[in-house]
């Protein structure tokens, strides 16, 4: 049955009527709504009768806004500049908090952890690293108040920029338990200009570390929850608990505190004896139970090649390779 035109007209009219009615209703509803919102707002307190009013309307309690400086368990602050070659590694030129630490092994080379500057590479992913990074040396001067060394020590920062060169075999390994560990967690930052600080070269060790041996780690520690004082370099002694065969070069320290010091990653691990110091490895990113570092022994060929590539530069003597 065909619909007659006369039967089509009323629904159109009805729809138009509905549209207008709904529009009118919506308009009045919206007007009412905004009036309702306005009336919900507390009146301007300046117009309030101040008379006997003891306080304002109740409000949600506020954060008091007191700050907390970080707990001092990262180690001893290096106010005497014994570990001046341990540097801050940052993504920005003026960053006062370290992304990681590193060590100057040549006036134009800073050794750090690849995991600081690169996204974790997996079986299917290529390594993606920051192309450029900043290195800041921090020299301490006068300590204004010995009770607050972190906050009151004069600090001189010198900033250098350089290109990131990760170890070509840097990757993430999963063991049979499913826990992850980095292999070849090393990267160099090739600085555009040589570091001006005159630093005594630190020899690399040629001998294996032992379980139970104490090493010194240095770095710009900052706590996950509390942060750290800007530009504060710590050193602390750590005991080796495990030297697993896999990944290559990995050594596990005893995790000394409940707090994790992120800023230590990339920082050096030294063997110290009779006033001498050897570079043993580079701290990796730790977990609450394990604090790993990467021994340099399996990666010496790569390091030597990188240093020797700069050998032509007369301002850059090759560091002596230590014998024990």
């Amino acid at each position: 049955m065909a619909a007659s035109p006369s039967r089509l007209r009323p629904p159109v009219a009805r729809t138009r009527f509905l549209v207008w009615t709904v529009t009118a209703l919506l308009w009045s509803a919206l007007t009412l709504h905004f009036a309702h919102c306005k009336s919900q707002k507390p009146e301007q307190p300046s117009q309030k009768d101040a008379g006997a009013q003891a306080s304002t309307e109740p409000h949600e309690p506020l954060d008091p806004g007191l700050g907390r400086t970080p707990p001092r368990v990262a180690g001893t602050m290096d106010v005497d500049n014994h570990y001046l070659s341990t540097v801050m590694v940052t993504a920005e030129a003026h960053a006062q908090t370290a992304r990681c630490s590193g060590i100057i092994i040549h006036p134009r080379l800073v050794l750090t952890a690849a995991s600081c500057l690169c996204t974790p590479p997996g079986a299917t992913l290529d390594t993606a690293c920051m192309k450029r990074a900043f290195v800041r040396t921090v020299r301490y001067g006068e300590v204004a108040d010995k009770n607050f060394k972190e906050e009151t020590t004069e600090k001189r920062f010198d900033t250098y920029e350089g290109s990131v060169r990760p170890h070509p075999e840097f990757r993430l390994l999963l063991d049979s338990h499913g826990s992850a560990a980095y292999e070849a967690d090393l990267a160099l930052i090739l600085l555009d200009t040589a570091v001006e600080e005159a630093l005594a070269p630190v020899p690399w060790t040629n001998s294996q570390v032992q379980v139970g041996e104490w090493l010194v780690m240095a770095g710009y520690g900052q706590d996950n929850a509390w942060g750290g004082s800007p530009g504060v370099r710590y050193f602390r002694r750590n005991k080796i608990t495990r030297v697993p065969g896999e990944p290559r070069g990995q050594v596990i320290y005893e995790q000394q505190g409940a707090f994790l010091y992120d800023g230590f990653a990339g920082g050096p691990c030294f063997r110290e004896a009779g006033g001498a110091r050897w570079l043993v490895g580079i701290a990796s990113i730790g977990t609450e139970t394990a604090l790993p570092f990467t021994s340099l022994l399996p990666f010496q060929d790569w390091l030597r090649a990188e240093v020797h590539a700069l050998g032509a530069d007369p301002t850059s003597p090759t560091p002596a390779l230590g014998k024990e």
Partner: protein
Amino acid sequence: MPSLWNAWVAALMVLSVLWNAGCASAPLADESTDSSGLPEYGIGGNGVQEDRKDLYRSVVMILLPDNAFCSGVLITPRHVLTAAHCFCLPSGFETRKGTHVYSDTSQCTKTATVLGVSYQQGKDTSRTKPAARKGKVSIHESFRATVIDGRIGEQLADLAVIQLEESLGDINPDGSMPEVDVSYSEKLTLVGYGPSTYRGIDHQIRRFGTNFITKVNTTSSVKEFRMGPEGAHPFGGDSGAPCFRETKEGRWLVGINYGFLARGMESESWFINTFYFRAWIEEQKKHLEPN
């Protein structure tokens, strides 16, 4: 035609939802424990910068017992204005349940260490040179804090002055008191040593930024103003941080931060309005006891 009708029905439904949400007056779920919903522009985020040019050397850091710290401002070479609650809330107050009123100023910490920090930042080289001085704390006699489950319910006359044993070197004070009260939507500058995000870990760096007044609250006992979430926002460590009115004619100290509410787009920061405490502050400036 039915599709047009359906569209109106849908529009009505959308509006009914908006009706309920539009006022945004209902408290949100507890965001204070979730940093993701919080503004990222603390004294250090968007539009906020480190004071590398030493524009605000008068703004100092105050070191307190229990690793606590606050911010403050030199109002003369020998006096620092800050918040009283930095000294008068007992150790561990944050974890104390229930409502507690603190008004006995004899219980407040009597001394503090004040740090003046010069940055002297160049392109590749910079120096952070702190000068430390000990000082004696005077609390405003009307100070009263009501703390509910470790958070601030009400704070009256939350002001303290530290008289330094000796001046902080060559730092010029910023102690000009305002001649006119603050007003709604006025743009002010905040300076402090708090982190750049709520519970951030990058504190102890002097940062500054601007924000606008969203509320001026003046009753017989309450003299405060508030700022909203749009601009610079104080966080932990910015208690006692100054708020300046800056014009071509100069810089006036109009507020002292005493707390904040970190709730996303409902965030607020609260300031003691120094305009109403001019007489007390001027009196404190004259007060110098021999060491």
